[in-house]
């Protein structure tokens, strides 16, 4: 628990959680709860910073997730935050070329579309100035407003008014400032959440991050998940973009992180070039890695084989057909005996000349011993005729043997 100021507010039973809290917008608070209504922020700009020193704070029930201490059951609502401190910053006209616009230590933006922001800035200017810190090269490091600066540069602006934070402004607080600014008005994609966590590791132990930050980012608070997110930044841009756009499953990204670069890019390429559901991706990646292990080759070697490339290049197949064909090929290589048995059973049935609309269904994976006969009919007479036909059908006795006798590979 962060030691901090306790704000106590009277509230009656049944009164909605709404209170007036005074706090400075850039205090070193760790509360990280929404400081203003997100709609209000959205109307200012897509990448704005809360500037009001006093704000009306709506505390819907969801705030429970954000605050560090809320005791219910009494008429008191308690919120613990760190001690208040007024944020001191000074406005300055800054040449954009003097600002380091590579993703810096406070940046948590990845794979974004600048066009709406450019349209807003083009129309109304920058309503909320970016916040910068002076760096050792006497240039500036972006704390908040990274995208505003990029948009301004793309619009051909040479300088804009920024707020310069004091030189002794603690880097951890700068990071929190930007985090809170982002959290109040937009959803962070998985890669961005990974960036936040990675940057937090510069200041905090993993245990502290697990306890105080994972839930704020909407991530299950456990070490494996933290490691998964922390590892995203090590991945290639194509993979990160696919994760950020939810084209590639986060779980799959976690799994391929431990692979060689060639294998990783090869498998990601397969999932990115076709549209797979996350479940299909997960099943396929298991099969591909197990095929590689069974056959003693690399994942890239498995996927470079002709059967896959032919499917990918086949212009007569649509996306779902391609995915289905690849899954079928993978299954045949992953489960050769099972697929052979299924083929033999199907072939045996086709030689039987069953009456129309009659099916024989084997037990799942031939594991059980009970087969099912399904007869579709619309009249009793039709059923009788089909039963008569079946009773004289030669070869029925061997139905349960069709799949047997396969050789193990």
């Amino acid at each position, binding site marked *: 628990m962060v030691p901090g100021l306790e704000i106590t507010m009277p509230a009656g039973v049944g009164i909605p959680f709404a209170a007036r809290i005074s706090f400075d917008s850039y205090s070193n608070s760790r509360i990280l709860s929404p400081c203003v209504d997100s709609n209000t922020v959205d109307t200012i700009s897509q990448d704005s910073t809360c500037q009001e020193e006093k704000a009306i704070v709506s505390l819907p029930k969801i705030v429970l997730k954000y605050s560090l201490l809320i005791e219910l059951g009494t008429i008191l609502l308690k919120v613990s935050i760190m001690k208040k401190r007024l944020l001191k910053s000074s406005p300055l006209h800054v040449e954009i070329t003097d600002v380091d616009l590579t993703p810096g230590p406070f940046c948590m933006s990845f794979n974004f579309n600048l066009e709406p922001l450019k349209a807003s800035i083009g129309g109304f200017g920058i309503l909320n100035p970016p916040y910068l810190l002076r760096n050792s090269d006497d240039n500036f490091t972006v704390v908040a407003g990274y995208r505003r600066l990029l948009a301004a540069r793309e619009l051909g602006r040479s300088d804009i008014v920024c707020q310069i934070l004091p030189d002794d402004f603690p880097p951890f607080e700068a990071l929190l400032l930007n985090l809170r600014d982002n959290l109040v008005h937009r959803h962070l994609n998985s890669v961005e959440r990974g960036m936040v966590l990675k940057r937090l590791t510069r200041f905090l132990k993993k245990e502290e991050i697990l306890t105080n930050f994972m839930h704020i980012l909407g991530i299950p608070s*456990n*070490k*494996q998940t933290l490691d998964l997110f922390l590892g995203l930044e090590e991945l290639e841009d194509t993979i990160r973009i696919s994760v950020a756009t939810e084209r590639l499953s986060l779980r799959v990204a976690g799994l391929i992180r*431990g692979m060689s670069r060639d294998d990783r890019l090869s498998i990601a390429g397969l999932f990115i070039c076709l549209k797979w559901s996350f479940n299909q991706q997960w099943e396929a990646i298991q099969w591909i890695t*197990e095929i590689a*292990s*069974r056959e003693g080759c690399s994942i890239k070697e498995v996927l470079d084989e002709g059967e896959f490339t032919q499917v990918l290049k086949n212009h007569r197949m649509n996306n779902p057909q391609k995915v289905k064909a690849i899954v079928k090929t993978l299954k045949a290589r*992953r*489960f*050769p*005996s*099972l697929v052979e*048995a299924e083929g033999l059973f199907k072939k045996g049935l086709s030689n039987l000349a069953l009456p129309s609309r009659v099916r024989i269904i084997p037990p*799942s*994976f*031939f*594991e*059980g*011993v009970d087969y099912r006969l399904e007869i579709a009919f619309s009249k009793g007479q039709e059923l009788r005729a089909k039963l008569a036909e079946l009773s004289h059908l030669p070869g029925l006795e061997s139905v349960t043997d069709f799949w*047997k006798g*396969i050789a*193990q590979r």
Partner: protein
Amino acid sequence: MKQFKIRRILMEKGAENDSLAKKILKELPNIPIENVEPDELAPREDIEEMDKQSLRMIHFNGEFLKPCPGTRKYICCGYQILNIGINCPMDCSYCFLQSYINQPSLRIFSNLEYHLKVIDDIIDTSPDRIFRIGTGEFTDSLSLDYLTGWTDFLLPFFSGRKNCILELKTKTSCIKGLIKSSYRKNIVVAWSLNTPRIIANEEHKTASLKRRILAAQECQKAGFVLGFHFDPLINYPGWEDGYEEAVQVLEKYIDPESIIWVSLGSFRYMPNLKRAIKRRFPGIDIFDGEFVTGLDGKFRYFKPIRVEMYAKVSERLKKWYDDLGLYLCMESDDVWKKSLGWSPKNSANLCSYLDNRVRKLMAE
């Protein structure tokens, strides 16, 4: 004899006065002791890593004797489990406990000796039934015997009963307690066996094949009846040679006439076990086989693969000696017939078959 590293003792409230707890404290005088509450939650990481270097003394209030959690979908042997503890200091990659237990540490039920009376009552209420009881389901029967002295009180207790046997199942060569005991009647000492490759790659911290079989030989010479369990059979390139080698070592050192049974079981696992294993043992290849979902929800090798493995291993064992009491663990009637050439058809008949093995071997 191998001793496993214990870094701390966790003493649950209520266990401190139990005789077994006192004995262990005496055996480990320099190990730090932490007093803990029975319902204290363990860190998730400890649960996942199983915390195999902490010995937790528990005054157990559950049932000490329970039927083996078999399944009605397959033929089961009607075994009874004597709960002496949970978790084991060895670390087999395929161990089902990795997804089964929800508490870490080597958990020792320190009031076991006191509760043997209850087991006595259960056994006595069914005098015509034979109880085949084992302690090796949730832990290794002998790996911690040098600390717990389980054999000191379990052997006299079960040797004195008329209608039960105690099977001590192990992957160790920790037989000191057995050998020094004077009790032999109704005691089966059994080893879980596998190929040298599986032992080396998957059965971490266990005794080698040869050491296990040499320990079995010593027990046999000392008058114990033996059992062997080829479980889990694992299908990998070269498995036939591996199991051939295992049988050859048996052949070399063991007299087959006093073997009460040899079981065969193929590798099977619940879906969540795969996740746990892959996390703890990255790069593991035991899942490379063709697994399909079985009738009980566990993944098993596709039936023809199981049949082939059982048939080949059993054929080789029969070549060594044709009255080994071979049986399959959790298999279906058709797999029995195709693999061994006969089937007990149901669990009751398998029970009778194994009970008869008890009558035959224990009467001799």
